[in-house]
């Protein structure tokens, strides 16, 4: 038998103006298990709270109902109040008789009847309340950053500078991501290498940062403060502890392969560093192309290595470590335009290149040492067409969104081309020019003054005729078909999520949008958090953006990690789901419906019908559960329930409304 106290608030005249409080008090006294009912001018005030505390003692109450303003207003206030009493803070229900009653109804009779009903429902619910307890979760103050591009590096440096250890996991053999492939960066035309490689070196030498290249996240379990992460560090076939990075192996390796870093425009060896300033500055062996590893011939690098660092027997290494927070910074890739745009040659014309390929062509450390030449014959193109929005704003063949950075790097490419080939002609096909950013529009205008001819219209077709690439377009501003016979065409292609985005997102419980970008928790107010506590987003994995925005978001993510790490432990939510093992049939419906991956199936051995039975039952992780209750409805045997909003409580509320 519970002992319930009901306290009705006047809220001055806010409630009492439309609700006959005395009648409500009178009615409440008649409800089952109500030991005392009283009213208060201002319940939330100190005297109000004091009178409740006294009533609890006087009447030996074990739970209370407060009929007042919205629980969104003062539920926490009253829970805090109960902390000083003998009652568990969760043995409290609030009847919202202000926002949802007195303020919205004018008729006193109707308002009073409704208030009585609401108190009735709250009383019925509180009768079934059980004490709930929060637990504390320890926080491991180590961060994992997935991705070593500019966003990942920035986040790692900021977290490390705040004094916390960080591990960077990078899939490629070097840090640097896409930014280090670029030649110059808009709008200031800083040399990308000049501003990116120092960051790489900082990361590589920071005492708080561990860099794992050629590595990927294999498995993640746990929750905020306590992620168990398994990382696969792929075999490099070079012992980095002994390798001095002298590069002798690379010069003598007989196998040449198209360089990924140079976007297929240059070559590398089978044992290689992707580029000169790579961090770590040590080579790896490409097992798919190495003669020794594919056909057991050669092995020249092993023979030549002065420190005997080559190890053909090297294997992938799996390590599992605990991290308190994860920053996802896996970046983007460019859309595979060749597979989508047959009208642009579908990749058959070697002089139709992507913007990233152009970056390598124009880069002083690129395959042509910065001379802009045609991939097909090495001649200098005298006419270049730049086509924007290839794959962007194209729901039929590509993506519906704008890739944000292309207008600017398209202008940059035009500027760079005209700078290096002063007698050249450059035509830029565009749909709109979108240059919101400091100094951006000025940069675009300067590019036009450089001589770039902007043509408003999409190109319908590119084809080769007489050694020229004919671009058929329309100048929509004059309404005439136009043709540009170009020597080279640069396609400014759409950014799309990295291949790993979907797999990683589902592993981390981070939702993906329709295009598979990782979703932030709120598009405006929580732009770096995700719906999974302790997991943050930085850079283009969350959506297309340019370098300044990526860096800003990375620092923001790092700050969120630092805030989390500033505490020693976290308080968990008390109102979470729980499964009754005796009813659970192990069907796993709850596991599938849970948006937080908070439920797992576990094998238990228990006595049932006087026999020991081993079977699967679901278990809720209190660190991950957010208390939505989706699992409870999915549970067929009725094993799953939500604390604080149990099936029984809600049913009692419904019954109370109709039948008391």
């Amino acid at each position, binding site marked *: 038998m519970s002992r319930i106290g009901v306290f009705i608030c006047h809220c001055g005249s806010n409630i009492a103006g439309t609700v006959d409080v005395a009648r409500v008090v009178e009615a409440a006294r008649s409800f089952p298990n109500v030991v005392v009912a009283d009213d208060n001018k201002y319940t939330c005030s100190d005297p109000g709270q004091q009178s409740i505390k006294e009533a609890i003692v006087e009447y030996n109450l074990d739970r209370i109902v407060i009929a007042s303003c919205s629980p969104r207003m003062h539920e926490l206030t009253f829970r805090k109040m109960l902390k000083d009493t003998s009652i568990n803070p969760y043995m409290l229900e609030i009847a919202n008789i202000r926002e949802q009653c007195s*303020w919205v109804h004018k008729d006193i009779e109707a308002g009073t009847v*409704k208030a009585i009903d609401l108190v009735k429902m709250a009383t019925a619910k509180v009768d079934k309340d059980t004490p709930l307890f929060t637990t504390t979760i320890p926080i491991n103050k180590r961060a994992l950053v997935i991705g070593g591009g500019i966003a990942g590096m920035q986040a790692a440096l900021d977290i490390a500078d705040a004094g916390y250890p960080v591990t960077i996991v990078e899939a490629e053999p070097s840090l640097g991501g896409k930014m280090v492939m670029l030649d110059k960066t808009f709008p200031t035309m800083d040399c990308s290498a000049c501003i990116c490689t120092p960051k790489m070196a900082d990361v590589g030498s920071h005492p708080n940062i561990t860099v794992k290249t050629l590595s990927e996240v294999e498995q993640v379990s746990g929750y905020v403060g306590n992620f168990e992460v398994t990382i696969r560090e792929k075999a490099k076939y070079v012992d980095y502890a002994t390798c001095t990075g002298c590069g002798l192996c690379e010069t003598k390796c007989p196998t040449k392969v198209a360089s990924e870093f140079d976007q297929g425009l240059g070559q590398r060896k089978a044992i290689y560093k992707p580029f000169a300033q790579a961090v770590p500055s040590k080579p790896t062996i490409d097992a798919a192309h190495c003669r020794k590893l594919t056909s057991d011939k050669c092995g020249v690098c092993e023979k030549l290595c002065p420190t005997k660092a080559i190890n053909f027997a090297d294997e992938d290494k799996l390590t599992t470590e605990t991290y308190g927070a994860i920053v996802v910074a896996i970046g983007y890739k460019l859309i595979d335009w060749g597979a989508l745009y047959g009208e642009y040659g579908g990749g058959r014309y070697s002089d139709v290149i992507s913007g990233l390929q152009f970056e390598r062509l124009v880069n002083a450390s690129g395959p042509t040492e910065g001379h802009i030449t045609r991939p097909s014959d090495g001649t200098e193109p005298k006419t270049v067409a730049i086509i924007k929005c290839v794959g962007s704003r194209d729901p039929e063949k590509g993506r519906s969104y704008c890739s944000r950075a292309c207008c600017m790097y398209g202008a940059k490419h035009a500027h760079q081309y005209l700078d290096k080939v002063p007698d050249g002609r450059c035509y830029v096909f565009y749909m709109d020019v979108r240059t919101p950013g400091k100094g951006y529009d000025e940069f675009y205008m300067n590019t036009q003054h450089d001589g770039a001819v902007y043509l408003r219209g999409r190109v319908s077709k590119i084809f080769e005729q007489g050694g020229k690439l004919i671009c058929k377009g329309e100048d929509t501003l004059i309404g005439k078909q136009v043709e540009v016979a170009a020597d080279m065409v640069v396609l400014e292609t759409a950014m799309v999520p990295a291949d790993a985005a979907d797999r990683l997102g589902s592993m981390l419980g981070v939702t993906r949008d329709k295009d598979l970008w990782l979703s932030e928790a709120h598009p405006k107010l929580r732009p770096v958090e995700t719906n999974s506590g302790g997991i943050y987003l930085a850079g283009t994995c969350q959506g297309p953006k340019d370098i300044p925005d990526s860096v800003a978001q990375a620092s923001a993510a790092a700050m969120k990690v630092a805030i989390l790490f500033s505490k020693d432990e976290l308080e968990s939510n008390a109102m979470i789901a729980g499964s009754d093992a005796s009813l659970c049939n192990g069907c796993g419906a709850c596991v599938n419906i849970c948006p937080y991956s908070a439920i797992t199936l576990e094998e238990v051995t228990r006595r049932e019908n006087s026999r020991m039975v081993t079977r699967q039952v679901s278990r809720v992780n209190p660190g991950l559960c957010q208390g939505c209750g989706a699992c409870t409805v*999915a549970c067929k045997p009725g094993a799953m329930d939500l604390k604080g909003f149990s099936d029984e409580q809600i049913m009692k509320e*419904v019954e109370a409304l109709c039948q008391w």
Partner: protein
Amino acid sequence: MSVVDEKWEPTVLAFCCHWCTYSGADLAGLNRMNYPANIRVLRVPCSGRVNPQYVLTAFNKGCDGVLVCGCHPGDCHYVSGNYYAKRRMMAFKRLLEYTGLEPERFQVRWISGSEAGKFRDTVVDFCEKVRALGPYTGGAVSLSEGLGAGAELGVGAELGVGAELPQGGDAQ
């Protein structure tokens, strides 16, 4: 419809999710909007928490109309709860209508925390329609009979209702 008591007032229950519709209702109060006093809001964390069985119980125990309200699709505080609610409630609604329940008595609405006006309009409209229909007299017998028949069609089975209560079902 039998002769209605002149003083009869419809009992209308609304399951509202804490994050969107409930706060939308609070905002309606803050803005001193007016709507019929027949509505009783039952707060749940998420529309995905609403078991069809609650709705069934409400009608069986004497509610004249039931609303289920949550965040707009895509805005769920708990990522996907309202999607499940939508699928579940739409199937359940068809089942209820199969049993003879007037479609106007059971509605599912998406109302955000900023849509106080929409909350008011929804309540006004819903209460008006339920009032026009008069008291719900189907009662427990008619519903369980209907659901029994529905279960044969496979609709009830999908929802897990029509079978033994009190444990609810799912509509995955």
